[in-house]
């Protein structure tokens, strides 16, 4: 036993103190959820998802506008019938995702208006909440049933400035890219911190700084790559398919909504 330090002779059972605060886990999970939502490609060729995006876009815009302008229950019930009719044609998974979004919006709206209801001024609140829910539902159906590239294509068909589409396009792509990067850094941090680490929050600055440097690098590389590929900043879309019976039905439904709004929706 000569020559071996005494402490090596002891059997040690090191049990790290349980860590408080689950900020790493929470961040990892929330980033994973966002990335999963972004990277998922909805629209696997089911009926309503095959609609030409520009028609769906205009229809959604019109519906939201009419719902906001209407002054009574009749039009809201008509809009609900139309939106529910569209919703029931989607796949179960998409319906579940949309319903979750609408429920969150509903709870939020009711919470905001709760004081008005509590002091007895809730007369018009119900109609306002219904308007919010219907507008969110219309938007959620559009976004769930239309994959992002189709939305960008629809915007270019509708002559929305290219710079706007490009900014949105880049944002979506970079959220996904940089999200992956943050995830890797969070894993690295998690692997390196053993036991209770009181100064873990101070690493947040390092994390954000690294992210900024990386995104700056990525932006420069992206610019060069785009220049190399002769990208001038304009989105040119090739006409895909012709307008078919699906679009005709949707336009017909829009006309019905418009007529019912003019006939009854303004006053009732």
């Amino acid at each position, binding site marked *: 036993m000569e020559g071996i330090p005494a402490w090596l002779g002891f059997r040690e059972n090191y049990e790290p103190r349980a860590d408080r605060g689950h900020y790493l886990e929470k961040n990892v999970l929330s980033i994973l959820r966002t990335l999963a939502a972004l990277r998922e490609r909805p629209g696997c060729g089911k009926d309503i998802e095959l609609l030409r995006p520009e028609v769906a876009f205009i229809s959604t815009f019109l519906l939201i506008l009419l719902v906001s302008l209407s002054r009574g229950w009749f039009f809201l*019930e008509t809009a609900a*019938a139309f939106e529910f009719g569209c919703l029931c044609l989607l796949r179960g998974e998409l319906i579940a995702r949309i*319903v979750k979004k609408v429920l969150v919006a509903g709870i939020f709206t009711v919470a905001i208006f709760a004081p008005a209801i509590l002091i007895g001024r809730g007369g018009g609140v119900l109609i306002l909440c219904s308007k919010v829910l219907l507008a969110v539902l219309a938007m959620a159906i559009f976004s769930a049933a239309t994959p992002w590239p189709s939305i960008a294509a629809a915007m270019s068909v509708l002559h929305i400035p290219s710079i706007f589409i490009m900014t949105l396009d880049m944002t979506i792509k970079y959220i996904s890219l940089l999200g992956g990067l943050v995830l890797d850094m969070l894993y690295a941090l998690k692997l390196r911190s053993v036991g209770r680490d009181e100064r873990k929050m101070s690493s947040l600055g390092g994390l954000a700084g690294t992210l900024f440097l990386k995104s700056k690098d990525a932006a420069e590389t992206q610019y060069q790559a785009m220049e190399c590929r002769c990208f001038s900043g304009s989105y040119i879309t090739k006409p895909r398919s012709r307008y078919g019976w699906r679009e005709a039905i949707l336009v017909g439904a829009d006309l019905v909504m418009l007529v019912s709004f003019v006939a009854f929706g303004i006053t009732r």
Partner: protein
Amino acid sequence: MHIPDNYLSPATCAVMAVAVIPAWVVSVRKVSKDLPKEKVPLLGIGAAFSFLIMMLNVPVPGGTTAHAVGGTLLAVLLGPYAACLSISTALLIQALVFGDGGILSFGANCFNMAFVIPFLGYFIYKFVKDRVTTKRGEYIGLAIASYIGINFAALCDAIEFGLQPLIAKDAAGLPLYCPYPLSVSIPAMLIPHLTLAGIAEAAFTVAIVAFVTKTSPGTVYVGSPVKTKPLYALIVALVVASPLGLLAAGSAWGEWGPDEIKDVVNGGKPLGFVPAGMESGFHFSAPMQDYGLKGVPDIVGYIISAILGAAIFIIVYKLLGLLKKDKGGSAIKAKA
């Protein structure tokens, strides 16, 4: 056939609710065990069918109306247990959103329409089907089964109505709830159903089963492809046809409001009073009472109600289909 609130005494409502609970429990167990995950949305389509068929009223002698239910139809397409759940859901939405059928009498309505019709209809159909060899014989069996099913339900309805004057009276001896005894309620309920509603039920059942067997055989036979497009097309056709139900003016027998019952003529003279239980009983105001919307033509309200109702059932059952656990086989298939 939808019993409104305050036509049955609370005690009768409680007994009927207790009577239908075992049917629900067994149906839920059977459906969650036997029905494959991909077939769960069919329950929603079934509920939408039943809902729309019940909106199509037919005028019957005596100025009242009656309607088909589609109970045997759903029992043959989905099985009696799934049909029981589908029709119960349809009745629930009808009561809560459209004010058709009462909240307290929900148990009684489910017993008559969601339990008696699908189970009785299905077993008569099976009995005949096992003894005939031709397709024609099978359809005749189906027509007989649906005809007997709806009439037996109407009889149950009539007995529940007719017992009320015997079990609930005030101090002056006047009935508190439904004022008509069995001698009035049984013929009043059975004559419309034996004549028109029964025939409508049989015709709907045979026509729709024939259509579905041809266009989407997987709905009926195991192993064949389930095509939902023809079913959706049928639902759209029923939605478009739903305002036909408005052609039949007047309420169905036993579905009058408290404001109407005083003037209902029976045996040549009006009733002349509103039963006390009806006047001061439980009142629930549904958002779209009687499938109508305030200030717009009935036909518009009817179509909007039909679309809303049908869509709600399909959405709810598609969501329930997600909750149902995948069986091993289909999970592997999905991965592949």
